[in-house]
């Protein structure tokens, strides 16, 4: 029997597969397709301090083997999420990860503290790709000092393990990873989307109302694999990998590169059964390439120099 279980800080995963934040809302829609208890975990849509409407539409565009999105953190706010969405997910035998976001350190602190008060949330995923409104829009996610700062604030505000979700839009991803590890991160989650744009020829302007959007899907997988491979060699905290995963082979590629678990985002849109199908295929895929367990495979693709 191939062992799919992985134990990470705060997370006892029966398998390493979880839907990625923002691609699964709070699970209700996909619960109509399959039993969410099948999933290793669920990462919820980003929560902010108060309700947000997000950006104007169009919010998505299709690209070659990928898509752009600029949803803009639309969410009902952390209170309502705790009140209505967490209890729904708690009905399932899976782990719950809360993705938290904010425009100021205070907002991050507030959201982290709120989740700390509730049962059923097993870990936080700290989304640092949001622009910091107080500091004039500089992203928390592209400056190692800012990233460390927000990590510290969140760690202080909550007892839950914190997985910092790194933005790939940086010159030096290893520096970012080390900064948040030093600041107390329990794990990393990588990668978030790459900033991209599509120009709509008929209207001669950016298709996405927000102009830029985040690129996700198979197109970005090679970048995700490279970054995880590089970071894994320089940190000792575990990595939740993501970026273009749509098959069990992709999952194994992420494990070999150094991920300990894998999130599936864009692939849910074309195939609502993406997660359970990957979970079903994983034992055979691992076996075919000579692994008895998920844990066996983690980091095994890294060539020591």
């Amino acid at each position, binding site marked *: 029997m191939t062992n799919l279980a992985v134990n990470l800080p705060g997370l006892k995963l029966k398998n390493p597969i979880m839907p990625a934040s*923002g*691609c*699964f*809302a709070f699970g*209700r*829609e*996909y619960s*109509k*397709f399959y039993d969410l208890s099948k999933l290793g975990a669920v990462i919820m*849509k980003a929560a902010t301090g108060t*309700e*947000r*409407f*997000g950006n104007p*539409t*169009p*919010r*998505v*565009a*299709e*690209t070659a*083997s*990928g*898509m752009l*999105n600029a*949803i803009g953190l*639309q969410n009902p706010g952390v209170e309502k999420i705790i009140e209505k969405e967490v209890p729904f997910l708690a009905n399932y035998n899976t782990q719950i990860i809360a993705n938290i976001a904010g425009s100021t350190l205070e907002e991050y602190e507030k959201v982290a503290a709120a989740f700390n008060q509730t049962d059923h949330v097993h870990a936080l995923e700290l989304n640092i790709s949001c622009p910091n409104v107080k500091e004039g829009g500089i992203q928390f996610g592209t400056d190692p000092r800012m990233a460390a700062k927000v990590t510290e604030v969140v760690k202080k505000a909550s007892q839950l393990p914190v997985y910092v979700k790194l933005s790939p839009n940086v010159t030096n991803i290893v520096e970012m990873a080390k900064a948040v590890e030093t600041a107390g991160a329990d794990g990393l989650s990588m990668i978030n989307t790459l900033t991209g744009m599509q120009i709509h020829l008929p209207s001669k302007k950016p298709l996405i109302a927000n102009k830029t959007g985040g690129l996700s*899907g*198979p197109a970005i997988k090679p970048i995700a694999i490279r970054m995880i491979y590089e970071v894994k060699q320089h940190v000792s905290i575990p990595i939740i990998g993501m970026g273009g995963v749509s098959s069990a082979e992709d999952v194994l590629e992420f494990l070999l590169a150094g991920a300990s678990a894998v999130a599936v985002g*864009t692939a*849910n*849109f*074309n*195939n*609502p*059964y993406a997660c359970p199908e990957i979970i079903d295929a994983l034992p055979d895929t691992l076996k075919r390439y000579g692994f008895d367990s998920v844990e066996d495979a983690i980091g095994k693709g890294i060539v020591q120099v």
Partner: protein
Amino acid sequence: MMRKEIMLINAVERIALDTIEMVVENPYISQTATPGQFLHVSVEGYTLRRPISIADINSENNTITILFKIVGAGTAKLATLSPGMSFDVLGPSGNGFQIEGNQKSTILLIGGGIGVPPLYYLGKKLAEKNTEIISILGFQTEVNVFYEEKFSKLGKTYIVTNDGTYGEEGFVTDIIEKAGDFDSYYSCGPLPMLKAITAKLKDKPGMISLEERMGCGVGACMACVIPTDEKGGYKKICSDGPVFHVQEVSL
């Protein structure tokens, strides 16, 4: 309930410029779908599914008719498929037109371009209830016109083209007075048309079908929202819509 289903293609026909009518077979969808619902169509090689309305259903044959215009890569690819081939869809998707309580009333259907198809199945269902139907169908120009005959069988039908090359000249809104009295209306078409219609008919009850670019098509990604008020309220076109009461949304 929405499911992932395989549609077997029975027939493909070009019925107007760049406009394809496809008859597909699927027992589940044909037995469960209602007018105004759509299919979220997977096209090989493309990341996102394409939403396409249900234009007709023959529940005896288990067939569904869809009509689509070739506007980009996905619809172009879909148009290359031939009978015997198949594609998968999520469906039936969304909430369609409410048609209860329309008996003995007169209904106006107003369709624009590729917004016409969902009104046909709606019209057929209304006709089954002996509702009186008046249709106004707008197209850009003669070569785009389709389904005139089919709508004519449901009731009085006006065709209008922007350049007057077929039927009346102008916009669908120019014809509304001429069409006579009616109790409520249903409309589907481009946003400027819907804005003009809802402004003109603000005293009549109406339902409109909206379009937006979609990610998931199931209500999970928040791509397809439409504001309901100025205070941040919203609905999701894919799962709350695509059909809304006029008052529900702010265009």
